[in-house]
């Protein structure tokens, strides 16, 4: 119970800190892009540009 409470408090603290420092990331998922790319590379995948999308911002 205590561990869960500590984890929840920590999650709220880090989320609030991020939102304060980087307001543009508010509500956006946090993605470790470097890790994502390493995983893709390790699996031998070769990303290629897709059709049918648009840039929003």
């Amino acid at each position, binding site marked *: 119970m205590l561990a869960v409470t500590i984890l929840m408090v920590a999650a709220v603290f880090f989320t609030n800190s991020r939102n304060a420092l980087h307001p543009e990331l508010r509500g956006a998922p946090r993605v470790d892009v470097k890790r994502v790319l390493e995983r893709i590379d390790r699996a*031998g995948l*070769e990303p290629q540009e897709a059709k*049918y*999308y648009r840039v929003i911002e």
Partner: protein
Amino acid sequence: MNKIECLLCPKRCQLVEGERGDCKVRINLEGKLKTLVYGKVCAFHVDPIEKKPLSHVLPGSGSFSVATAGCNLHCKFCQNWEISQREPEETNNHDMDPRETVRLAQHYGCKTIAYTYSEPIVFYEYMLETARLARQSDLRNVWVTAAFIEQKPLEELCQWIDAANIDLKSIRDEYYSQVCFGRLRPVLDAIVTAVKKGVFVELTNLLVPTLNDSEEEISELTRWIAENVGVEVPLHFSRFHPMYQLTNLPPTPVGTLVRAREIAMAQGLEYVYIGNIPDTEASHTHCPRCKSLLIERQGYRIVRNRVGEDGKCDSCGHKIPGIWK
């Protein structure tokens, strides 16, 4: 921020840098949408075309069948969840570019390439290029899909697809949202568009006990088919087997499938089949005009085929819809 929106399927996932869509295979990298599965095939096999199921397309022929990881739906009953509900990093992938795919299809004497097993929409670019090369090599293209796709990419794809088996999972939107995590309307629109664009379409409806097997719903679904795409569109009622997240339900009783077929035929549908059960009278093709037995099947094997290359019943000359040569 480099935020983008995928316009391939009606989910229209909005993705920040490094994030991937609900399909697990399309990702935002440096502000561009990238596919992770171009030429990364995780399943390939020569299947009888009857297994797709397609009963009116080159009966008895082999279909070179390919799939990659990923799907834009998450059906609780998925039969292929081990590839469809996985990220491509989690599957064993073979490098098979479009040219190699066509070469293998020819090598194995197949008449078609089938984009199947998972959801081909998510490997759209690979499917499109392979289909284009296949046409140049006198191969036909077969699309086995749930058709949860936006209209624009669908219209482009239809130029290269000869036949499709489209899964119409239910005629109720709640079923799509609660069991499949999708929506009904785009699927209905896609079926109409594919037929209008000249793709030869057969439909499949998986009957899941207690979820979509009421006589009322079957009646509604078959009425929609008759009124919107025509009574000559073949329909396959498929038997559910407990799988993935629905292991608590029993297999569809054979009686339910037989009753569904009766309801469909009473609505005027001319070609109604029952699939996923051992040999049954309902796997044969009959002429809707003179009632003669045209294609006799034993499992996926063709015992006899009396539909000529001209696609006509050899008894009365009635034109049977499909691709026959």
